């Protein structure tokens, strides 16, 4: 009796969480995959929708607007992640020293990530405002003409990139600073005794040692960059034209404005597959580095023993 209860306990502990996740997470994802083969609008029950097979996917391939927004998404994600990596890691390398106020800086730096994306979009939309916005006011005070921050395609794209950099560079800064501070002191000491200069130290010791963390950070950030939606929604709502319409935004508009749920589901599926690859790449990479670390440790033990 007691043994039986014991064997059941883990399931009792796990059951509520598993049930919620099955109902509200796994089921919807399965549902979405099914819906992507339907011609379905929001006023229909899913049973009434027509089965159209792969037509949604075929339409996606020939849909110029979709191709444009796919391209915008890739451009946005790659651009923000590379700029943020350079800035974040650069700042971490610069500021990795005994400075008073570092704790304060780290606290201040998390704020942009903690407040609602809606609020971030709101503030930036205000600052980019053509007449009352901060940036144009400053430009005018300096005697320069106003810039079309959100009203010209290229400018708008640059503007959303800048806002994202403001919001997320701190993430990379904090992670790479943590990585830097956990590097083995001995390697650095040895290099310095051998007469390495600051740059050599960074290039040949610090960066290679940080690389595993940096790659994981970049991948995490890349995954998140594909999910950005609210900030852009508030700032430009995808416009002008399609210049800032990232995929997540396109999905939400297809569902709510164009009312084509099946088509939106097919898009969601493609985005999901893309992210799945990134995630698996990240997982495989961490497993690989762990395995290598274990092998090195084992080899060392053999040597010592």
């Amino acid at each position, binding site marked *: 009796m007691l043994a039986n209860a014991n064997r059941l306990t883990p399931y009792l502990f796990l059951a509520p969480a598993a049930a*919620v*996740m099955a109902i509200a997470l796994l089921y919807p994802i399965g549902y979405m995959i099914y819906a992507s083969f339907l011609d379905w609008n929001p006023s229909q029950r899913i049973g009434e929708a027509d089965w159209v097979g792969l037509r949604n996917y075929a339409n996606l391939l020939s849909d110029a607007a979709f191709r444009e927004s796919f391209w915008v998404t890739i451009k946005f994600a790659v651009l923000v992640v590379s700029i943020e990596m350079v800035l974040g890691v650069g700042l971490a390398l610069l500021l990795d020293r005994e400075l008073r106020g570092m704790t304060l800086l780290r606290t*201040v730096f998390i*704020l942009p990530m903690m407040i609602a994306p809606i609020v971030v979009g709101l503030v930036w939309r205000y600052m980019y405002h053509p007449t009352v916005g901060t940036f144009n006011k400053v430009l005018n005070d300096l005697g320069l003409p106003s810039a079309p921050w959100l009203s010209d395609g290229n400018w708008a794209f640059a503007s959303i990139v800048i806002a994202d950099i403001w919001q997320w560079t701190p993430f990379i800064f904090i992670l790479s600073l943590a990585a830097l501070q956990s590097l083995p002191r001995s390697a650095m000491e040895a290099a310095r005794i051998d007469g390495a200069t600051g740059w050599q130290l960074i290039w040949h010791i610090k960066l290679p040692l940080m690389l595993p963390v940096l790659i994981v950070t970049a991948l995490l950030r890349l995954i998140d960059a594909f999910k950005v939606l609210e900030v852009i929604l*508030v700032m430009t709502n995808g416009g002008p034209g399609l210049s800032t319409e990232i995929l997540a935004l396109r999905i939400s508009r297809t569902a709510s404005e164009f009312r084509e749920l099946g088509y939106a589901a097919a898009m969601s599926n493609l985005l999901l597959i893309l992210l799945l690859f990134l995630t698996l790449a990240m997982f495989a990479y961490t497993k690989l580095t762990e395995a290598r670390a274990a092998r090195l440790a084992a080899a060392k033990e053999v040597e010592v023993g």
Partner: protein
Amino acid sequence: MNARPNPAFYALLVALMFMALGPIVLMVSNSLKLNVDITSPTATLLFTPTIQNYETALCHWLPYEPEHVRRCDRTFGRALGNSLIISLVSTAITLILGCMAAYALVRFRFMGRQVTSLTTLMVRMVPPAVLLVPVFGIWTFQFGIDGTIAGIVLIYVAMNLPFVIWILQSFIVQVPIQLEEAARMDGAGPFRTFFLVVLPLIKPGLAAAAIFTFRIAWNEFLLANALADRGSRTVPVTIVNSLTEYDIDWGVIMATGTLLAVPPILFTLVASRQIITGMTAGAVKG
């Protein structure tokens, strides 16, 4: 390292803080201005602060009637109440379900950490935009809980559970098993052991998990927008709605934005260490 850091580093430090804080300070200061001051072409640092915008936003919570409010718009006040209820309830449920599941996974070892960390990662990767279509469809046609607060709570709990389970696991692993064995020896069942022995020991982990969960529920827009009806709208939804109007009332919108930003800012000031731990753990241990 260098005995005395170059003053240039302090200048950089200050500049970075200014850049990070600038937009936030701008929003707060604008929320204290009259629209005349916000839109005036001459930017001034000196202005007489006013709480008019907050009075307008919160008018139906005020015991008195502010004279500058012509017709009290109750949308925001109601949304604030909804947001509070939804975030608090979903945080509480997520934590209870999450810590039980984490405990089971760690102590009874019938599924490896590998599996959970992989699932956590997988779910972390799912964008809310992807959940939009199916959640809307299922909630509306099958569960019939669209437009209710319970419906929004359900999806938030599900979205946050994987992360909470994963972060609590790393705290539960550190609880010495001897303590639990001692409790069991004294005749406590698994549930009592868990609630009276294990839970008090992982309070820091619970705090970190609570902050992350609350923040996501509090800030989320997309799913709330799809699921909520007039009575159950949350603050982010009302902010976006008022932004689409032709004539934007910047003062009031900045005030609502500030109110929405207050809880996350407070958490950051109180628990920045835990937040950073949670963030770094998420990346470094994958």
